[in-house]
Structure formats: C-alpha cells, structure tokens
C-alpha cells in the first residue's frame, strides 16, 4: 500500500482528533449534541460562558472533558473517571435489593437545601470547582441521607450536570450522526432510524468497489453512510429529478478524506437515463443527441457556498444552525461534484451495483420504474419510506412487471433496555416507528 493511502486511512479512521477535524460533542450525557470542527479559534458555549475547543485537539475520541476556571478564564480540561466507578450504578451492588430506605419521610417543601443561590455564587467567585459545589450541595441537603442509594445517585447526577458539566468527544460516524439527528431533529433525516439505515446498507450490499445509486432526500445522511462503507473506492451517486440537487450537508459531518470525497458524486436523473437510452439505441442518436451534460450549472454544488458561516465553527443541534460551517483556514474537501464522464460510461456499460432510495416526499414507484433499469441484473435494492401504502403499490407493480424478485416489505423494530442489578426492564420510552423498507433484486426480464 502506498504511503498516501496509509496517510488517508489515518485521518479517516483515526482514533485521535486533529486540527480541522469534525467531532460530535455530547454534553451531559446526550442533553446537548453539537457538531463542531476543531480549530484553534472554535469555541463552545456552555451556560453563559464560551470555552475554547483547542484543548480537544490531539485527544483520543471517547475522552471526557470538564469545565474549569483556568488562569486565562474558563476552559475545558481532560477528565478521567476512576476505573473503580464511584456511583451506585457502577458498583453493581446488591444492597439495593435489601434497601430499607424509602421516600415516606421526604416532604416536598423546598426547604431541604440550605445553600442559597448567593452562597453558590460566592463559592464560584472564590474559585470553587464544579465538583466541590456539588459536594457542598450534598452536604447541605437535609434529605440526601434519607434518600435511597438510587435516588442519591440521581440527585448527584442532576447537580453534576448543572454545576460540573461534562463534554464527551465522539467520532462522527454513521451511528453517532444518525442517532444525534434522530434524537434532536428527526424530520431533517426523514425519521430514518439507525436500525433502518443499517438495514438499507446491508440490503443494498454497500461495500468497497461497489457503485451505489442513491436518492438521498434525508440531508446527505444516506450518501455519507454509503460513502463510509466504500472507504474511498467505488462510487456513491446521488441522483435527483429536475435541476436542483438534493442538499447533503450532513456529508461534511463525517471526516472523509479526499479519496472518499471524490467518490461522492451527483448526477441528474436525466443524464443517467440519457446514458441508458444511448446504449439501448446505439445508432442514430449519437450525432443529434447532445453530449451528456454533467458540467451544467446544476450538476455540482460547492459546499462552501451553501454553508452558512457562523462565527465559531460550531453547529449546535439544539439551535437552528445544523449546518456545520467550514472554516476558511482549512478547506474541507468537496464532496458531491458532478459524476465524471468515465464513471457515467462505466454505469452505462455495467449498470449500478445497487440502489437505495430514501425520499420521504416522492412516490417510490415513479422513481423505481425509472431507476431500476439503471441497475445491473442481479443488483439488490432497498427503498425506505415512512408510509406503507406507496411501498405496497410499488411492490405490486414490480411483481406485475416481472422486474424484480425476492420482494419483501419489512418494518424494523428496536427496543433498548435498562440493565441494572435487579432493575432490568425495557426503557419506559421508545421510538415506536422506524419506517418501512421494500427490498428486492433486479432480474433480467428478457
């Protein structure tokens, strides 16, 4: 393998952050999720203070940070929780089974805490750390000792989130990006849940050296997820109807290197279909038909023009700025150029190796009847939709037209569990709907 390849593998799969890399910041255990680009100038606002993200550069993903009052004002510093685990959940104790305490003596009269807001402010001014304030609050709580271990832990966690917030540095991978959006802004990704997205990728056999045709109207999440599986080989071609390509801002949340970005291309459906009809007719058309126009003004879009620059390179899912801006200093490589001629030629000859559609607002059948002929024979496909009926109709039409076999509509179901000593049960809240998927394999109809 060439030096170059090793270098690019390094940035894409690196387990340590670098200057200019994209990260997902998980503040207080998922309370806030923020996509950010780590530059020396970028900052993150927690409470009413701004924290520089510079200390995060060069740290391993998975590191935890705590807010501190440094010499030059508030800063984030690396924090390593003790491996022993000091809370009830981590002790895995059996005491809880024989817990004798309960809440009969606890009265909700707002008098349990003897520290006032002024007291806490005073502590802060004297330079007390967040943890120290939490301990003081516990020491001054008249009811803390009466609480059960479990609720003591809850109390501590609540105070810790407020007075000693923690920031977890996470890798922006399909899993974390999809979960972050699903949690905060599901409509932007067409309510595509991570298990449904995973199924789409498997059912469409997305892997190195494949040429995957996608219709991504879920903000670029699907395109990014496919590109992640390609690892800088093959192509993911995001096609669109009419003149305007679908936005795919989420692609820039991934840390794709140049090799991978080059493999993310766009082509209007007309270009692909034109290519198709050229092959089937082969004669006559050549002189008259205009060359496949992939350099038209709409075929490629410059990410940096689309992005709305905010001042500090931070995109907060809590606020209405989910577009992670690229800093002027370090150019994020461009993804989503028009498909190169040689690729169009390759697809014309061989067909795409698979198809994935995630277009919540389009009718699956009208898309599929045009797109399926662009696939090679025996190519698998998977179509996501939030509604069952359009998929049922699409499946029925595919059957009647003998265009595909192995047709199946499936609905993913995902349930998470709380697993604790003597307190294991499914979570009280769950996502009740993950959409529907129609999958199948294209066949040679002749």
């Amino acid at each position, binding site marked *: 393998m060439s030096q170059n390849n090793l270098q690019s593998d390094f940035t894409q*799969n690196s*387990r340590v952050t670098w200057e200019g890399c994209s990260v997902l910041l998980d503040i207080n255990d998922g309370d806030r999720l923020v996509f950010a680009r780590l530059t020396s100038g970028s900052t993150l606002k927690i409470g009413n203070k701004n924290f520089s993200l510079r200390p995060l550069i060069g740290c391993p*993903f*998975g*590191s935890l940070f705590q807010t501190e009052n440094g010499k030059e004002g508030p800063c984030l510093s690396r924090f390593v929780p003790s*491996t*022993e*685990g000091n809370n009830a959940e981590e002790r*895995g104790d059996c005491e809880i089974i024989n817990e004798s305490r309960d809440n009969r003596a606890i009265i909700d009269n707002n008098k349990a805490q003897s520290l006032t807001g002024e007291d806490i402010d005073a502590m802060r001014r004297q330079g007390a750390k967040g943890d120290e304030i939490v301990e003081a609050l516990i020491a001054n709580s008249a009811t803390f000792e009466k609480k059960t271990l479990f609720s003591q832990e809850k109390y501590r966690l609540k105070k810790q989130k407020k007075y000693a917030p923690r920031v977890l540095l996470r*890798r922006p991978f399909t*899993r974390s990006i999809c979960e972050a959006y699903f949690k905060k802004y599901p409509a932007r990704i067409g309510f595509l849940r*991570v*298990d449904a*997205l*995973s*199924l789409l*990728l*498997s*059912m469409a*056999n997305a*892997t*190195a*050296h494949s040429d995957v045709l996608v219709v991504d109207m879920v903000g670029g999440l699907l395109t990014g997820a496919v590109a*992640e*599986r390609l*690892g*800088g*080989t*093959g192509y993911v071609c995001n096609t669109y109807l009419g003149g305007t390509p679908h936005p795919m801002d989420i692609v820039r949340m991934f840390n794709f290197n140049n090799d991978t970005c080059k493999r993310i291309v766009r082509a209007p459906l007309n270009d692909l279909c034109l290519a198709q009809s050229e092959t089937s007719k082969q004669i006559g058309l050549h002189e008259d038909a205009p060359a496949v126009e992939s350099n038209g003004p709409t075929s490629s879009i410059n990410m940096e023009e689309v992005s709305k620059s905010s001042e500090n390179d931070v995109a907060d899912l809590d606020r209405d700025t989910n577009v992670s801006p690229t800093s002027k200093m370090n150019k994020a490589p461009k993804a989503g150029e028009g498909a190169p001629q040689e690729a169009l030629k390759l697809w014309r*000859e*061989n067909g795409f*190796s698979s198809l994935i559609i995630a277009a919540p607002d389009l009718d699956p059948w009208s898309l599929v009847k045009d797109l399926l002929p662009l696939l*090679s*024979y*025996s*190519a*698998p496909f998977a179509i996501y939709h939030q509604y*069952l009926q359009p*998929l*049922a*109709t699409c499946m*029925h039409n595919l059957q009647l037209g003998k265009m595909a*076999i*192995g*047709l*199946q*509509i*499936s*609905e*993913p*179901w*995902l*349930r998470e*569990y709380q*697993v604790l000593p003597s307190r*294991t049960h499914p979570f009280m809240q769950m996502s009740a709907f993950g959409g529907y998927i129609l999958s199948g*394999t*294209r*066949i*040679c109809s002749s």
Partner: protein
Amino acid sequence: MLLIDPSKKLSFTQYIRDGDLVIVYEKHDSMKAIKACETSVLQNRFGVFKHSDWIGKPFGSKVFSNKGGFVYLLAPTPELWTMVLSHRTQILYIADISFVITYLEIVPGCLVLESGTGSGSLTTSLARAVAPTGHVYTFDFHEQRAASAREDFEKTGVSSLVTVGVRDIQGEGFPDEYSGLADSVFLDLPQPWLAIPSAGKMLKQDGILCSFSPCIEQVQRSCETLRSNFTDIRTFEVLLRMYEVREGKMDCGQGDEGVSLGSPPYKRRQCSNESRKVHENTSSPVVMARPCGESRGHTGYLTFARLKCH
C-alpha cells in the same frame, strides 16, 4: 462474492463462468447455493437444469429446465448467503447483523475479532464491511465447525479477509498478538462475561464490543462485568416485522358476494384474477398490505460497550 480485486468486478459486468458460486432462486423462501460446473446438472421439482446452459448468461437470468420449469440465477451477497448456508449452529439474521455492523462502527480497513464463528453468517457480513484492506479474525472451539467455516469462506470468496482459528475464547481469551489492535470485538458465547476481560485487552481505546445473548440473565451478568472497563453500555433488541402485499377487492357492504379478503394469502395472481371475474363491474381492485401472521419473536439481546479511554 465481494469485489476485493476491482479489476474483477465479478458481480455485475460479468456473466456466469465455470466455477462461479450461484444462488439458485426458486421463490423467496426457497434458494440454494450451487457452484456452476460445465458438466453438472441441477435436479429439482421443476425438472433438470444443465449448468452448461447457465454459463455465459448474466447473473439475474431466468433459466429453464428440460420440462420448461424455471429458476433465477443470482450473484451471491452476504444477505443471500445467510438464507442458504448450512446451519451448523443457530445463526444471526439480517436485522441483528446489519445493526451490529453499524453499531460496532466497522468500516473498510478495520480489524475485527469474533467468537464463536458458528456457521459464519455474521462473519461474511463482517468481511464485507472491512474489505478491501481490513481483516476479520474469527475463533471457534469446535474444530470441525471451524474447518467447515473455512471451506465456506473459500467458496464465497471472502477467505482473503477472514482467518478462522480454533480456540476456546471463554477459557483462553483472544491471542495476545491482537492486543490493543482490534477496532471491534463481537462475542456470541454462552458465558460472554468470561471473555470480556480479554476482549477489553484486545480493543483499541474507545473501541467497541458487542455481545449477543439470547437470555437476559446472560446480559445481566455481562453488563456487571463490563462496568469496570467499559462505558456507554447499551442493550438492544432488534426485530423485523414482515408484510404481505396482495391485490384484492373490498366489498362496499351492499352485495352478499364473498370478498377475497378471507382467502388464503400469498396467491396474489390467482386471487386477483378470481376477484376480477366475480366483481367485474363493481369496485376496482386495491393493493393492500398487512403484517405476516407469524414472525420471529426473539433472537437475542445485543449489548454494546466502549472501552474507556485512559
């Protein structure tokens, strides 16, 4: 099965060649994996199919038997392979498999450890995910099973991405040579908690472990063990609900003619034809979908955890 060498884009450009692995599709729940061989024949209830008729045809073709019966010939994928492989053990299916790959953050170039190999259903998908530059090291304590898995990986063409070892991972742990090198570890063992400390040694910082267990007691015990060195411990159950689609007519409630709704499912063509005759001049047929009456109710719990950063 996989395009490891881009110069041999086997699946799609190409035509079936002598020696290729072919998935013979009769219907969605009846498929078979066969090596095409110039001199062989396939005999089934549809008649006798000569392999020599297949060679040179594109994958995805319909081929006919001496009696005029037909089957489709498909290019193998890990999903199709999961449906045709010989079960030497209970296997993982697509819902769990696809979730595991995404949740373990397996991408091209990753080094993945797995135990046990079982029938190699998951292994094939792991291989697809790490291709072209990564590798899967999979271990099973059953020597014959490991050998059969090796043969299968040879047959499906993923053997350059997978190494099968015979080893009791619960008893001995993973080999030290992979210490600190694994991006992800997958455990499907009866007592996963015995292998968790070793898995922790193998993983890179922030690397992810997944343990698959059918019983909640196994999960309980695994989670207790995980708490010392792992974080972000999460347990899931993933299932799929399948739907039946058919065209039928709905009675508007005035006539006393029977509706085709109650008739046996999955006879789409016949049903719609019959109802067309009966209801010729009444309402037009509609396409309807409903969940299948029976489905898999439980496979196993998937517990994920990340190795803590030091």
